């Protein structure tokens, strides 16, 4: 029993130390990087994954689409509509196949936005494909 009490106290100490370390406010990026390095967590590679995720997902900003459309003379917003119309009659397999065709090689971030495609419903898949197509159009427009 006495041993159990000690274990209880031990767990509380370990757990609270973890909480306290998490709550340290870091002022600089270097400070954070150093802490993460000590914990064997690679911030740079994690940031790269995050940026890929953000590129795939920061496409909901209609203003950006409008601005790009203006600059390039292409109505990207209209592009979304025509893509939606094109996808409307597609089967689930066809949508998944097109997503795989357009997507970059699987990585940590890609898997966050595109996990288990087969388990998703057709509406979500169509919406994801729409976003992907628009994102590619946008990138092409940006390059021009």
């Amino acid at each position, binding site marked *: 029993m006495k041993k159990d009490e000690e274990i209880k106290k031990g767990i509380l100490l370990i757990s609270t130390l973890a909480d306290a370390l*998490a709550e340290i406010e870091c002022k600089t990026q270097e400070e954070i990087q150093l802490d*993460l390095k000590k914990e064997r967590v690679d911030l740079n590679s994690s940031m790269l994954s995050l940026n890929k995720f953000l590129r795939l997902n920061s496409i909901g900003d209609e203003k950006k689409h409008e601005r790009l459309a203006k600059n390039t003379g292409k109505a990207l917003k209209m592009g979304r509509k025509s893509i939606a119309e094109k996808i409307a009659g597609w089967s689930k397999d066809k949508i998944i196949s097109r997503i795989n065709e357009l997507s970059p090689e699987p990585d940590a971030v890609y898997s966050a936005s595109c996990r288990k495609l087969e388990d998703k419903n057709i509406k979500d898949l169509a919406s994801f494909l729409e976003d992907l197509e628009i994102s590619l159009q946008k990138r092409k427009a940006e390059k021009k």
Partner: protein
Amino acid sequence: MSFNTSIIKDLEDVDWNYVYPRLLRYATYKCRKFAWLGTVTFDPESIAQEAVALIYGCGKNGNYRNWDRSKCPDIIKFLKGVVDSLVSHEYEKMKTFKIESLDCKKHTDVDISHDPDFSVMNFMDFLSAADPAKELEMKENISQMVKSIRNAAGENKYAKLVVSCLEQGIGKPREIADEIGIDVTEVYQILRRLREKISK
């Protein structure tokens, strides 16, 4: 309530180079709560990235979190809450965790908690439900870690006081600083020293 897509516009303003490292750091230490389990680890990067995926409306299994900027303008605070919830969920999932996953010989499902918080009692349930050999190993891990933390404090008066606060469950550095009457930056230094020494 479905995912509010207008949040995406608010997210465009977020400086992820500032926010994400802080989030990843937070997730890293929150996952360290379970270091004593030995073979089971929570991946902080997956947890941090899942938190971001959730506020973008594309979390695992179609899950999402609506960030209400007017109610919680500090996105880091909001994301930390999401991380807490994810870590808690991971722990909850261990309710039906197979003993074999803990590197034991038995193949039974073990109920290790009755609610998703990390109360000491839940951990105790977990320990007592494990295979005796594994239970012994985990208890040994705990004893070793506690010993290391106490040794790390050594004879330093303030470090000992910090450990004493932690033992009482005081886990906010500012509260620890108030409790023992030192500056919070000193508490930060002591906490980091403790962490460094126990990892050696």
